[in-house]
């Protein structure tokens, strides 16, 4: 065996979720873990702090932002389940060094859907955050260039919000029906 292949951590060490639970007990609202798939629900105000810890602490070393997306919980489960927030931004992080992952969720309310941008930590966040802004209208504080990425500038509204009529069309040319 060569030395440069990183080996899985020995048993008995803390998992990433346990580490952030230990470090930020006040910021974590909820956790979930199933067969090594770990999720933490974080308050929006604490995201920048937690993300910096995930990226920079040597025993976590989450150097790869795999995915950044959002969920609109309006009319969730046909309106039967009411949540106290409307949106949730979902981050998936991965560590190439330690081969471990974590999912971070940040609930946001309808009035002011705004969360800190992670572009300073992961450059990959730039286009992901533009996409989430384009599709859901969630603002990212500190983003260097927060403008639409998929839809055209003339487009009104955010099409993946559940209150956007699915068949509403905003043609650039052609019949305006």
């Amino acid at each position, binding site marked *: 065996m060569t030395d440069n292949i990183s080996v899985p951590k020995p048993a008995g060490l803390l998992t990433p979720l346990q580490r952030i639970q230990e470090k930020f007990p006040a910021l974590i609202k909820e956790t979930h873990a199933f067969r090594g798939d770990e999720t933490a629900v974080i308050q929006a105000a604490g995201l920048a702090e937690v993300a910096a810890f995930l990226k920079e602490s040597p025993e976590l070393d989450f150097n790869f932002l795999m995915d950044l997306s959002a969920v609109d919980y309006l009319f969730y489960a046909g309106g039967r389940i009411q949540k106290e927030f409307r949106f949730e931004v979902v981050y998936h992080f991965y560590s190439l060094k330690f081969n471990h992952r974590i999912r971070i969720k940040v609930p946001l309310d309808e009035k002011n859907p705004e969360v800190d941008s992670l572009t300073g930590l992961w450059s990959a966040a730039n286009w992901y955050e533009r996409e989430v802004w384009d599709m859901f209208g969630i603002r990212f504080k500190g983003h260097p260039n927060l403008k639409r990425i998929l*839809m*055209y500038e003339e487009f009104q509204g955010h*099409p993946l919000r559940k209150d*956007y009529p*699915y*068949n*509403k*069309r*905003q*043609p*650039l*040319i*052609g*019949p305006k*029906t």
Partner: protein
Amino acid sequence: MNEASNFFTSKLKDALGWARKFSIFQYPFVTACCGMEYMSTAASHYDIDRFGAGFPRFSPRQSDVLFVVGTISQKMAPVLKTVHDQMCDPKWVVAFGVCTCTGGFYDNYATVMGIDTIIPVDIYIPGCPPRPENVIDGLMKLQDKIQKGEQSRTLYDPNTKIGRPAEVQGAYTVEGHIKHIESRSS
């Protein structure tokens, strides 16, 4: 004398139509998965060169048939219109695949519900994607049209009922389509 000149002009028109239908210079406007089927039609196995249409020109100014192959989004629509405007007359448009014909299964914020809401269409080739035989059938129908010297000019003409009127340019519904077909035949 008059009869003779009529004879010659009609024969000249036939000759022009014959020459045009066997020298189709196509512009493939390929945006989506139908492109795969278009490629297999254009390749040696099905060999559309037999119909004189084997030579795609990637400049709209040098082509006379616009093949619109694949879904057209609202963002792409002005580009398609510009490409069509840049083509010299006489020109024909082929809607290749169901997305270009009606929008297909897309019924959302992003997709144009049929390219005939933007540019006039001569031949509709349905299918998701259409088989090469289906494409060749459409191509032969286009050749008949070229031979006769016909081309679609307008988006919708209430007199000839060519093109699609505004009420069926929205989301595709079976009821709306049947209503439109009935109004066309009456």
